[in-house]
């Protein structure tokens, strides 16, 4: 491991400021947990990207899910989603008031419940599960996001010089697709061990220095060129690409998914419940800038004061394993504090 750290130090010596984005929230978690930013030279910046499903879900979509639950529709979703504050309340509060919101981890927990709507979030990693639900005729409120279209936008506006590509997403979509994106900076697909992320940083610095724009698959034990063909086929059969609204990034063309079968699309089935929703984020909340890597969690005035994991005001403070603010709260306390 020390050889990679030494090599990073050597490479960094004659480089200016280098911005590398780790797209995936799981990577952010490892980086913060092991203090990897602290051991990198000061001019090498690791910036957290939008790879947290909870964080990028738009306020409107959260409000729609809450409206469904309060409207008496049975809902199922992932554990972290129930804590996300909507404009007026959260699914957790809705549940405390009597709404039927079931936390699930796997599709088979609600297979057979055809009157329960699955509030689907997540990137390519979780879409096969949603596809399974659609195959089983479970209606879905689909807020899935696709990572590659977002990266195309970020590389330009954030002046990113290299990407650490998400490992789990790549297991589904494969490594080839990253090259087909034609983004003008090098990318390394990385695993989740701290050593893997240090190595990915080292490989990226070398590529940046040599002005080599290519994709290195440094997670070949689970990521293959074409990805998971079975999962991709299942997704293709049940869902179609649509434009999607991201928190902080607005509508990105072709970056979302919707059920092909409109009879299973909760956005259509319950559209009347949504017609008066006026969504608004917590005034002053900087989650939108945080998911784009524009500011650090600690630059938000609410971080750790009015916005804490127990009482999150913004979406980035919710997920302890993927949300930039919750991770920074958990692992980012300075030793002097």
């Amino acid at each position: 491991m020390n050889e990679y750290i030494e090599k990073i130090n050597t490479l960094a010596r004659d480089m200016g400021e280098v911005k590398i984005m780790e797209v995936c929230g799981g990577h952010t978690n490892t980086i913060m947990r092991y203090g990897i930013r602290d051991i990198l030279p000061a001019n090498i910046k690791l910036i957290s990207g939008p790879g947290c499903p909870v964080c990028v879900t738009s306020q409107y979509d959260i409000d729609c899910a809450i409206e469904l639950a309060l409207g008496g529709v049975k809902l199922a979703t992932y554990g972290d989603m129930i804590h996300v504050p909507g404009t007026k309340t959260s699914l957790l509060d809705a549940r405390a008031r009597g709404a039927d919101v079931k936390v699930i981890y796997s599709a088979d927990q609600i297979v057979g419940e055809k009157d329960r709507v699955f509030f689907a979030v997540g990137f390519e990693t979780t879409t096969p599960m949603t596809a399974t639900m659609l195959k089983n005729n479970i209606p879905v409120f689909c807020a899935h996001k696709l990572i590659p279209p977002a990266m195309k936008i970020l590389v330009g506006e954030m002046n990113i010089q290299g990407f650490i590509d998400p490992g789990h997403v790549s297991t589904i979509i494969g490594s080839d697709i990253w090259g087909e994106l034609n983004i003008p900076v090098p990318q390394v697909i990385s695993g989740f061990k701290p050593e893997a992320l240090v190595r990915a940083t080292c490989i990226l610095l070398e590529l940046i220095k040599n002005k080599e724009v290519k994709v290195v698959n440094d997670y070949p034990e689970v990521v293959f060129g074409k990805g998971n063909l079975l999962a991709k086929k299942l997704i293709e059969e049940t869902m179609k690409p649509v434009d999607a609204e991201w928190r902080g990034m607005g509508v990105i063309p072709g970056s979302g998914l919707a059920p092909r079968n409109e009879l299973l699309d909760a956005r259509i089935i319950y559209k009347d419940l949504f017609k008066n929703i006026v969504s608004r984020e917590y005034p002053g909340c900087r989650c939108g800038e945080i998911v784009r890597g524009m500011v650090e969690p600690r630059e938000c005035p609410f971080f750790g004061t009015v916005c804490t994991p127990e009482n999150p005001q913004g979406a980035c403070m919710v997920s302890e394993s993927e949300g930039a603010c919750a991770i920074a709260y958990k692992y980012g306390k300075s030793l002097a504090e």
Partner: protein
Amino acid sequence: MDDKKECLTGNCPTPIEADVGSIRLSEGSGGREMQELISQIRSKLGAESDWKNTQDDAASIDFAGKKLVFTSDSYVVTPIFFPGGNIGKIAFCGTVNDLAVMGARPLGLSLSFVLEEGFSKKDFFSIVETIGELSKKHGVPIVTGDTKVVEHGSVDKIIINTSGVGSAEIILDEPLEVGDQIIVSGGIGEHGTALLARRFELETLIETDSKPLWDEINSVRGLIRQAKDVTRGGLAAILNEIAEKNGKQFLINEEKIPIEHEVRALTEVLGIELYNLACEGRFVCIASHKNSDEVVQKLKQFNKHACVVGEVLDGKNVIVQTRFGKKVLNMPHGNIVPRIC
């Protein structure tokens, strides 16, 4: 406002009316919100008494030249049967251990059930038998109890409450000193892993670590300053609680913490912090540098993974030395939630 509830497609069910001032799940999950709820409860009870250690795992009172120690706990767990045990085992061990960590020999327990109409009698008696076997094996009799049955849907199968009384010569509550050694009694997180594995239908050889700790603590209680069993909030909660209570800093060497390979693998698969994983049969104790070797040797007779994991320093916070750098280990909060992606 009302017209937004009007449904044109005929698909929208009747809305649920708002009800404010409800208890929220997070108020029971061991974090800051639960502390606030408890302090509100305390403020409404508020009577002064001769009881001591009322903020600890068990309260104590001087009685007939000894210390009488008393504790109570209610147990709900999903699933109720898991690899290596069931809810009955943790209901017995949890209360015995709350007495044991105070340095008290458990004298007897109460055992009360709230049962859901329709709950399997076979499962129920299997739980009762588990408690009976443990009671006989460890010489801690069940001396009183209560049983209630409620309508189907009113509780989830079974709730168990156990209370326990113990006696101690000295309460294990000696002040800590800089240089004291922090010792864990065995591999961390096995109970939490067994539960999660069952909940997510993952196959594992890991079983719950749940067991009564009195024999272990009894073997070292003359050599240690304090002990605390690792329970729901995992190592993170327990280390923070002891450090804060004593106004000291703990420096933990992460590489020394005993963790089974499968426990680590599962936390990585699910994206769960291993310091937050529950144990039901492990404790942390603190001994002087001089005594620490002897304590570890004695504890190794019960669990070969017992070892020193850190040191007491001046200051505050629990600091973890990882293989890359030092990090502050925070108090956990909320429920354990696997990552989405």
